[in-house]
């Protein structure tokens, strides 16, 4: 079974902190994605990557950056966390159209 693992289920951070969300997949997928999920808005794409060291902006990249140094790991970085970044963050990897999601990280910024 494909496994996508997000390092934390719940995080509480203070405004202005630098936050790292880590995601690891074990199926050698080339494509990886970061979404945020908010009630009534569905999933919105933040960043995605089709290869190591490659990244592309999604629909809402402002306030975020990403890093993909190894194929299996895709990190989302909040350079200076703000309260409007309180959300559920979902990582996914995909192969031949099927996306596999991690369990999500619920981030609260206080």
């Amino acid at each position, binding site marked *: 079974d494909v496994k996508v693992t997000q390092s934390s289920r719940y995080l509480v951070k203070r405004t202005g902190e630098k936050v790292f969300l880590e995601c690891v997949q074990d199926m050698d997928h080339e494509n990886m994605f970061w979404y945020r999920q908010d009630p009534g*808005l569905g*999933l919105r*794409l933040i960043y*995605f990557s089709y290869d190591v060291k490659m990244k592309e902006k999604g629909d809402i990249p402002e306030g975020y950056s990403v890093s993909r140094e190894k194929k299996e790991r895709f990190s989302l970085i909040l350079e200076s966390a703000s309260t409007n970044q309180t959300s559920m963050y*979902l990582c996914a990897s995909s192969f031949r*159209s099927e*996306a596999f*999601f991690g369990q*999500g990280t619920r981030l609260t910024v206080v």
Partner: protein
Amino acid sequence: AQSVTQPDIHITVSEGASLELRCNYSYGATPYLFWYVQSPGQGLQLLLKYFSGDTLVQGIKGFEAEFKRSQSSFNLRKPSVHWSDAAEYFCAVGPSYDKVIFGPGTSLSVIP
């Protein structure tokens, strides 16, 4: 611009009743279409997908969906709902394999 709408924010059905969740999309050509389910506290799981061919698609857990080009719809159906089907359901559409846009979701409650 492509978009996905799910007109029903929340639906409640009785266990054993039939279910239909609506999805409409806006896209210039024939898109790739997906339905995902998210159980409480879980990530999303793919239920089914449509790329081409037969417009009635079978998925896991007894779900099916029908692509209707004339109505720009891809509605999800199940003939008899089980209590374990209570979850959030997302329709998604994409111009290519992997870059998809998700709808806002429909929350399903099941009454015993």
